[in-house]
């Protein structure tokens, strides 16, 4: 697919005897919501690490909009427009909500070797940060310290920080992690409002959320992508049913959906 936004080929990473990513071939088209599902230990976290640059692949390539990024460090990938959220909330806890997002904006507004002007009074940083907060519905918490936010709000802030840089691809690592049903529903709603404006690669355990959001799914089992396609096609794929949906936890919820 020449018009893919993100394309990996033969992407491989072994840890000792375990092949956490086994010749992964993944294609994400512009503006789609592409979900990766798979049982625990399937290599989802490794895949996120490979794509974001925290893990170096032993083989294979990652093309992001015609740029080969497999050898680029994390911050360079971010500069190219690849933003990620973290499964375990990763914020600047002693900063305010607005400071967190403004820092994400700052990273994409030239270098930070500016030593004199008060960055907290720079409209060029504050305004885009506030609008990112509005998109996720956190603007009325802008002046609050991050460690005073509820868990759900911190997850929203994760998304706002990823959005703040105006990314072309959002890499969302289990955005619903640790959320109750209400918070989950709100997050699904939030992600739905982003649909169509930014490409999203979503890694998520919550099958209900996945089937509610995804345009396409890829199923990862033992580091390999065993199927890729539209949600209905995946649900009826016999290999997928056997390898993944047949399992205890995910299986029960998967069948419920289907």
């Amino acid at each position, binding site marked *: 697919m020449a018009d893919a936004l993100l394309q990996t080929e033969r992407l491989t990473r072994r840890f000792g005897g375990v092949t956490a990513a086994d010749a992964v071939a993944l294609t994400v088209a512009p503006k789609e919501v592409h979900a990766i599902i798979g049982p625990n230990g399937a290599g989802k976290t490794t895949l996120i690490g490979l794509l974001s640059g925290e893990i170096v692949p032993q083989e294979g390539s990652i093309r992001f909009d015609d740029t080969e990024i497999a050898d680029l460090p994390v911050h360079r990938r971010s500069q190219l427009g690849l933003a990620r959220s973290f499964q375990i909330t*990763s914020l*600047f806890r002693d*900063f305010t909500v607005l400071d967190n997002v403004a820092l994400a904006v700052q990273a*994409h507004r030239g270098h930070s070797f500016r030593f004199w002007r008060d960055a907290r009074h720079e409209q060029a940083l504050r305004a885009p940060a506030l609008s990112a907060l509005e998109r996720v519905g956190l603007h009325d918490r*802008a*002046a609050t310290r991050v460690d005073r936010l509820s868990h759900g709000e911190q997850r929203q802030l994760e998304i706002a920080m990823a959005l703040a840089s105006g990314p072309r691809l959002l890499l969302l690592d289990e955005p619903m992690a640790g959320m109750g049903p209400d918070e989950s529903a709100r997050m699904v709603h939030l992600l739905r409002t982003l649909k169509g404006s930014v490409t999203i690669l979503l890694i998520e355990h919550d099958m209900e959320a996945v089937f509610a959001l995804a345009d396409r799914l890829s199923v990862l089992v033992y580091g390999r992508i065993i199927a890729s396609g539209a949600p209905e096609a995946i649900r009826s794929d016999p290999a997928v049913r056997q390898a993944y949906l047949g399992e205890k936890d995910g299986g029960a919820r998967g069948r419920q959906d289907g």
Partner: protein
Amino acid sequence: MSVSLDPPLATVRQSAVTARTVFTAGLVVVLALVPVYALATGETFGVALFTRTVILAIGAVSLNLIMGYGGMVSFGHAAYLGIGGYAVGILAKEGIGSGFVQWPAAVAASALYALVVGALSLRTRGVYFIMITLAFAQMIYYVAIGLDRYGGDDGLTIYKRSDFAGLIDLNNKIVFYYLCFAILLASIFVIARQVNSRFGLALRGTRSNERRMRAIGFPTFRYKLVAFVISGALCGLAGALLANHTSFISPAIMHWTRSGDLIVMVVLGGLGSLFGPVIGAVIFLLLQEGLSRVTEYPDLILGPILLLVAIYVHGGIGGLLEGRRRG
């Protein structure tokens, strides 16, 4: 939930009139009046003690930039005092007495050393970083011992203070004290601007969560390195002042315990607060001086005091004055 009215903590706290603000202001006034008191009473020993205190406070302020705001615990900061001091001493011995040469040389040599040490050590973190900075400082310490031409272990007497072509006379103890005091205030002012600038936020974000900083697109290494070099350069200037103050320079100036003292001053005053290092330096050096008059083993009393502050008072003495910061 309503909008929280808490002020953003990350803004450098100077707003409310707290016990801390009053104490800090009082301390600055006292420091400003030290020579006046000395002139009035004829008790000049105080000026020497406070000159030394102010100079080491500059060193602590420089360490606070990387340790308090950048999360980098340098256990080799005394090396910069030594490099700055030896720059003055060596140039003086070689007949170059001009402060316009000596001081820039002290700053440049320290910055260069910081660049090398930083480039190698900042790829590690935690205890490894601490050990590498210590190892480099030890290396410089032994290099100084090996400088036979410049006194080796015994050190080097500096017969003439840096000469500023009649612009300012460092031989006048009062003038010299105010020069050091002005440099201290100027460095605090510059750092106050820095820590709220883009650079400062990048540095503090890195201290808070370096992994996230990289993920949002910051090349964190180069910001840490620049902070490390700024800190080293400023401490090198303190070294040049110290050499002028004592008219003597020896390897002892960069003994590893001195690096420890600087860390203690910063922690004692409260990490990551602008005047904290000054509070820490004053309390530490006055306690040391006072205790050494009443006992032969001042550290025996000083040690437990520091331990208690470290364990029980979050934010150092400054934090204590604030009513022991929440959390």
